């Protein structure tokens, strides 16, 4: 049975409207009756007053024909205009006056007053009836309309508000990540249609989420497997001692590029996992000086190739609480960026020092510096400065956005200072663990985009 909400609402609204219209109609009729009765009454009062004045004058006057009596008669005729019976009686009064018979005239006037009083009583009764009827009907109509409106409100609450709330709850659960949340498909046609569309949407969302997961698992596996072979066999070949100088140089280039590809895959997967809210930190005590030294050692061959001096300056620091691999990735990214922008013969310094509430690490290069226009955008994902594009510097603009994500997850801050022509320094801090706070094993990484630098 297809129960259509619009039809039902239309029907209920129609009934209410008809009820209200009926009440109005009855009241208009009553008001008109009342008005008619009032005007009748006024006329009657006027007639009675005029007749009384005339009677008094007739009684006072010695002679019956005089100006005041004539004007009284004239007024009486005007007051009785439109009532032939009463005008006939007025004619009798006139005749009596003409005959000089005052008592007959007074009698006739009395009968006019009597008839007029009856008229006025009748019309007053009629008006009272009409008013009573209007009050009764009005009250009935008012109660009826109120009941209908109350009924409609309750019905609307059940037919619309309840399904809406149900759908909102399900939408909220989905927003919180429970994609299996569904709404019961019941009630009137429209809310049922909403529930069905909502469920369809949720199912699609769940399916596309599943496909995305599958895709990333596939990419992770399918891209890493061949890279594992490429990089592994290259190492075996490079281990051989009888390679010619040229061959070794070429194979090292192959290896470098394979590693670049590997890092790109890793970066993409990192972002994908953060987006899916599925990346977790494996927290533990981290010696950032050691991590920085490892990063610098790992980048040393690349620095030598580019004829750039790469130095670590640092003092022993207390351990921080964090994910050692992710913090290493952060320094790797910064050093790799610095290498991209530092010309031959210049220097890159990685500096580790104890700051007030944590460890401060900075990577300074002697590159061209970054124009002020670009500074605010550097942490945006896929942002590439005009300089990078112009000089065809490799990269897709993920490095700094990853750095910021990781530093944020460690409750640290990251900032960039740069002077054109002088060089750029990227600094980040990782706070020392608060002594009282319990260490959560795996904190979810918050993903914030477009944060101000």
């Amino acid at each position: 049975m297809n129960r259509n909400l619009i039809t039902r609402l239309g029907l209920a609204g129609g009934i209410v409207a008809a009820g209200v219209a009926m009440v109005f109609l009855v009241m208009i009729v009553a008001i008109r009756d009342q008005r008619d009765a009032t005007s009748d009454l006024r006329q009657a009062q006027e007639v009675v007053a005029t007749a009384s004045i005339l009677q008094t004058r007739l009684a006072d006057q010695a002679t019956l024909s005089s100006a005041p009596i004539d004007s009284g008669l004239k007024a009486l005729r005007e007051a009785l205009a439109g009532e032939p019976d009463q005008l006939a009686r007025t004619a009798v009064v006139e005749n009596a006056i003409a005959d000089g018979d005052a008592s007959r005239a007074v009698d006739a006037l009395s009968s006019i007053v009597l008839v007029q009083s009856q008229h006025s009583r009748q019309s007053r009764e009629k008006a009272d009836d009409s008013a009573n009827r209007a009050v009764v009907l009005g009250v009935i109509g008012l109660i009826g309309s109120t009941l209908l409106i109350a009924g409609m409100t309750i019905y609307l609450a059940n037919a619309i508000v309840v399904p809406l709330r149900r759908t909102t709850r399900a939408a909220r659960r989905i927003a919180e990540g429970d994609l299996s949340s569904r709404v019961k498909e019941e009630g009137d046609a429209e809310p049922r249609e909403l529930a069905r569309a909502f469920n369809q949407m949720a199912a699609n969302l769940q399916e596309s989420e599943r496909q995305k997961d599958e895709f990333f698992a596939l990419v992770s596996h399918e891209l890493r497997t061949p890279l594992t072979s490429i990089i592994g066999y290259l190492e075996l070949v490079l281990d051989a001692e009888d390679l010619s100088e040229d061959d070794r140089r070429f194979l090292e280039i192959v290896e470098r590029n394979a590693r670049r590809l590997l890092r790109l895959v890793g970066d993409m997967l990192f972002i994908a996992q953060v987006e899916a809210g599925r990346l977790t930190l494996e927290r533990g005590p981290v010696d950032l000086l050691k991590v920085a030294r490892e990063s610098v050692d790992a980048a040393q061959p690349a620095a030598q190739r580019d004829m750039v001096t790469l130095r670590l300056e640092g003092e022993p620091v207390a351990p921080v609480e964090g994910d050692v691999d992710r913090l290493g990735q952060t320094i790797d990214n910064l050093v790799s960026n610095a290498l991209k922008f530092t010309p031959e013969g210049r220097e890159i310094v990685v500096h580790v020092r104890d700051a007030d509430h944590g460890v401060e690490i900075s990577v300074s290069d002697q590159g061209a510096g970054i124009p002020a226009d670009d500074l605010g955008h550097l942490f945006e994902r896929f942002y590439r400065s005009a300089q990078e594009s112009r000089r065809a510097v490799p990269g897709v603009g993920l490095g700094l956005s990853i750095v910021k994500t990781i530093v944020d997850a460690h409750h640290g801050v990251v900032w960039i200072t740069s002077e054109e022509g002088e060089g750029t320094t990227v600094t980040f801090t990782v706070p020392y663990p608060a002594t009282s706070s319990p260490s959560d094993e795996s904190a979810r990484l918050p993903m914030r985009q477009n944060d101000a630098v």
Partner: protein
Amino acid sequence: MSDKPLILAADDDPDILTLIRLALERAGFEIMGAPDGRAALELARERPPAMAVLDLSMPHMNGLELTAALRADEATATIPIVILTAAVQSSDIEAARVAGADAHIKKPFSPRDLRGRVIEFLGDPAGD
């Protein structure tokens, strides 16, 4: 036939299986390789190895199931087991530990590092 330590290697990618074989044979180990978990388990039952290097995702029987099966077998209950994994999820690494693996190595791995890890467990055959 030889006194070289025997290592069971399992990976469904033949190139990577060969890479493991080359890396470890050069260090003086003997390798028996299998392309999936089930074949690897059969090999291990015929000749119990001194150690196992296993890929996480393989057909028929994955690295976790194979680890559990090796642990259930008396002959291989205590051998060192290293899991190779391309997975970056900490949950997978945790699952490997729960199944009974002693260590995991992330793919792509350096043959040199693999060799180092194996020598950590079994000692260096060339060293003595």
